[in-house]
């Protein structure tokens, strides 16, 4: 059973309709170059931990958010991350620990998005833990692939085409802001 949901999560993230998720992960890692892969890995892991926490909390009904609030929060977190990228020109001035905490917190919010309706569909008492766990793991796998593609593109742009690393950060962040603003407006 876990394999089915693993594939479901994986396909879900590597899909154009999950554009908000893809953008968030790319934006989160947009400041870093291939040489800083360790930081990127920690960031993605922090995001994963946030996801998993939400998973546990929502299964046991510890927290309950109105779905509409979560839907609005997701684009807001993306815009926030992108703005941080744009404002902080000197990345050495940022404390990494704060960024890791932020990624974890945002993971929490993003996890709520699908935990909510999956819980309603699958039912609370009927062994929901395994499907949700599988789904989340699949999503994480997909995220790592997205980040790897982003880093590869980043590497080509910087080292082959000799483009200033700052361009990548700015372009990814601006796209993220435009798309997220659109999503927010559409949600009303």
């Amino acid at each position, binding site marked *: 059973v876990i394999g*089915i949901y693993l594939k479901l999560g994986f396909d879900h993230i590597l899909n*154009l*309709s999950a554009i908000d998720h893809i953008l968030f992960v790319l934006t989160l890692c947009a400041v870093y170059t291939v040489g800083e892969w360790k930081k990127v890995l920690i960031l993605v892991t922090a995001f994963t931990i946030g996801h998993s926490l939400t998973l546990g909390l929502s299964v046991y009904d510890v927290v309950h958010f109105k779905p509409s609030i979560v839907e609005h929060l997701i684009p807001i977190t993306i815009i926030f991350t992108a703005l941080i990228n744009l404002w902080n020109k000197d990345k050495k001035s940022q404390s990494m620990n704060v960024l890791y905490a932020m990624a974890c917190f945002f993971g929490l919010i993003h996890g709520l998005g699908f935990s909510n309706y999956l819980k*309603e*569909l699958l039912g609370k008492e009927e062994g929901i833990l395994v499907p949700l766990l599988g789904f989340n793991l699949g999503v994480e796998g997909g995220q790592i692939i997205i980040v790897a593609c982003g880093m590869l593109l980043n590497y080509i742009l910087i080292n082959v085409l000799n483009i200033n690393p700052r361009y990548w950060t*700015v*372009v990814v962040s601006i*796209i993220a802001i435009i798309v997220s603003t*659109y999503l927010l407006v559409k949600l009303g």
Partner: protein
Amino acid sequence: MSKLIIYTIIISVITKNYFRKAAYDFLLMIFVLIFSAHAVSANAYKQIVPLENPNILFFQQTSFHDIHISVIDINAISSNKVEIKIKTFYDDLVTSMGLIPGDKLPSKYKGPDDLIIKFVEKNLKFSMDNKAIKPIYAFSKASNPAIWTTLEVDNIDLNKIKEIKIENTLLLKVHDDQVNIVNVNILGQKESYSLDSKTKQALFKIKH
């Protein structure tokens, strides 16, 4: 637009550093615009139509879902009774019956239950040992944004049945990426299937 990009590339190659930098800026701007427009037109978020008529509704739909799945649980309650639980998203169900979520239920349906019965009959076929069986509709229960429908199959002898075939075309016409999960648990034997537009059938063999 494409000519503009080509000219910009040519200019950026010919000119020296200062102009090249300006050209990069210009190219990036165009890229950002094109990509954003594309991403936006991908219609990432589904438009929510509030359901107004309480007659068709069991609940007020407030949230969207971007995962297109349904789950069917087939469980043996005793050796001669099987319960089939169908879990779908309600707006998907309504859309697949050619209706718009929020619109009035057409008079050809006696009520929401009737709509659900037609939905199930149209999209789900069961057979045991190559003999078609018609489950009896029991009830539906809604929990925003999902709906659960329970069907029952009576008067069978599971100890004599060798295989159960499930043909599932639920919501395949509504979403390209629809995945229909089927979980079977009969006589302590468990199996799960992931069905989609390529694989519509599941065959469960009972070992005796």
